[in-house]
């Protein structure tokens, strides 16, 4: 044998180094370095074609979206829970921001105009419709201990309520407050299950059938839009092309798929 122990170890280390280098190379491809994400693999294959647009310059705060959503998806009325809601933003002259959403906005914001903010010098005020952002990098999916929540190939996050154990971790994890617990004794519930986490599905049952989500259907002013980005003439594609759109809490890196027109600084 012309091989010493030293030579063997050095040779072996070289081979191992080469193996590891080849193995590790894909970890540093530009796409991975630029934006790692949960759904990247899926995205490459099928793409996440669905997007949602909320136009805060059009929203009138009538709350018909909330009513429609609750009826369409059998969201428990008592105690009050909701999958979507409308917030009223009031920004004063000295820069204070007030947000309210009485009963999620489902009874509108009518009543004495502006009574709540009497005496306040208003610089700007508007309504912001809110719903699940169907993040491409969803914190709620990552934290689920029983893998009961997942992303479909269209990019929608769903909850498998047969698997959900009701630990509420996802409700804590969502930075947008888009999830809620179906009250344990609720008489109506989206799937008949109670004591489980529930969230907006972008009306998966409607959108899978080529219909608009219930809130989009019910919106009287077109402040909510839903569409397939693969359709270049679709309303959402046009908006994405022509308008400046913003997302909520961009710094968190959740990559939401609900885009806002006319979003003001201070909207969270």
């Amino acid at each position, binding site marked *: 044998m012309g091989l010493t*122990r030293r030579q063997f170890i050095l040779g072996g280390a070289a081979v191992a180094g080469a193996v590891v280098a080849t193995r590790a190379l894909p970890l540093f491809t530009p796409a991975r370095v630029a934006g790692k994400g949960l759904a990247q693999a899926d995205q490459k294959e099928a793409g996440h074609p669905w997007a949602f647009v909320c136009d805060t310059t059009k929203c009138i705060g009538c709350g018909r979206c909330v009513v429609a959503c609750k009826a369409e998806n059998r969201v428990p009325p008592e105690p009050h829970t909701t999958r979507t809601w409308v917030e009223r933003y009031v920004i004063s002259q000295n820069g204070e921001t007030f947000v309210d959403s009485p009963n999620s906005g489902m009874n509108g914001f009518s009543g004495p*105009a*502006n009574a709540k903010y009497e005496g306040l010098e208003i610089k700007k005020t508007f309504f912001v419709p809110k719903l699940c952002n169907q993040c491409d990098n969803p914190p709620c999916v990552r934290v689920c201990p029983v893998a009961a929540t997942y992303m479909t190939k269209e990019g929608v996050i769903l909850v498998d309520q047969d698997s959900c154990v009701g630990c509420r971790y996802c409700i804590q994890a969502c930075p947008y407050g888009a999830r809620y617990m179906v009250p344990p004794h609720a008489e109506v519930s989206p799937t008949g299950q109670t004591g489980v986490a529930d969230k907006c599905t972008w009306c998966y049952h409607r959108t899978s059938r080529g219909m608009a989500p219930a809130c989009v259907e019910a919106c009287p002013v*077109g402040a909510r839009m839903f569409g397939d980005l693969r359709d270049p003439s679709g309303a959402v594609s046009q908006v994405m092309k022509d308008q400046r759109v913003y997302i909520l809490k961009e710094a968190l890196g959740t990559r939401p798929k609900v885009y806002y027109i006319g979003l003001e600084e201070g909207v969270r």
Partner: protein
Amino acid sequence: MRHFIRAAALLGMLVLAFALFRSPPSTNLLAKSGLFQANSAGANALKWASMPVGLVRPSECQSCHVKEFQAWEKSAHSTVSCASCHGPTREHVESGAELVVDASRDFCGLCHAQQVSRPRDFPQVDLTQHGGQAQCVTCHDPRAPKFGPRIPHVLEGRYPCSGCHIPGAKEPYELPDSHIGRTSDICSKCHETE
């Protein structure tokens, strides 16, 4: 020979440890291997997709409510889906269950009550002032809320309006069904002479 095997095993373990260290179970890997989804995710997505639809599109209302649809389609309310006011309409389409619409001032006020937060160009009224305390639908047709066409002729000697404008008559003599029973003094509240 034995010392070669030992060293080889040691190296092998080191390589394995390093490779594992270099590729932690990334979320991509988990997603690909299906670990991010419950075993039943595919079936579950189908379950969600097969939930019943409650709100129908206006196109489904058209076949029965021809007149209403035509009026609505041309009106300023054409952006407002039938279901927006009439609510979940599937049951009505399938079994003819009655649809009850709230005709109160407050219901119209959900959209049209004056609100500082609403876009300025959106039509808003002060509910405490506008039109006394009558129901909005007394004057406004919800499917054609803007006031009717102006009257292209003088009124002297032509009263009552219902003398010429009769339900079912040809344009321009037709009286819409919603107008039946209205007296001439009501007509002039909405229709001005040119």
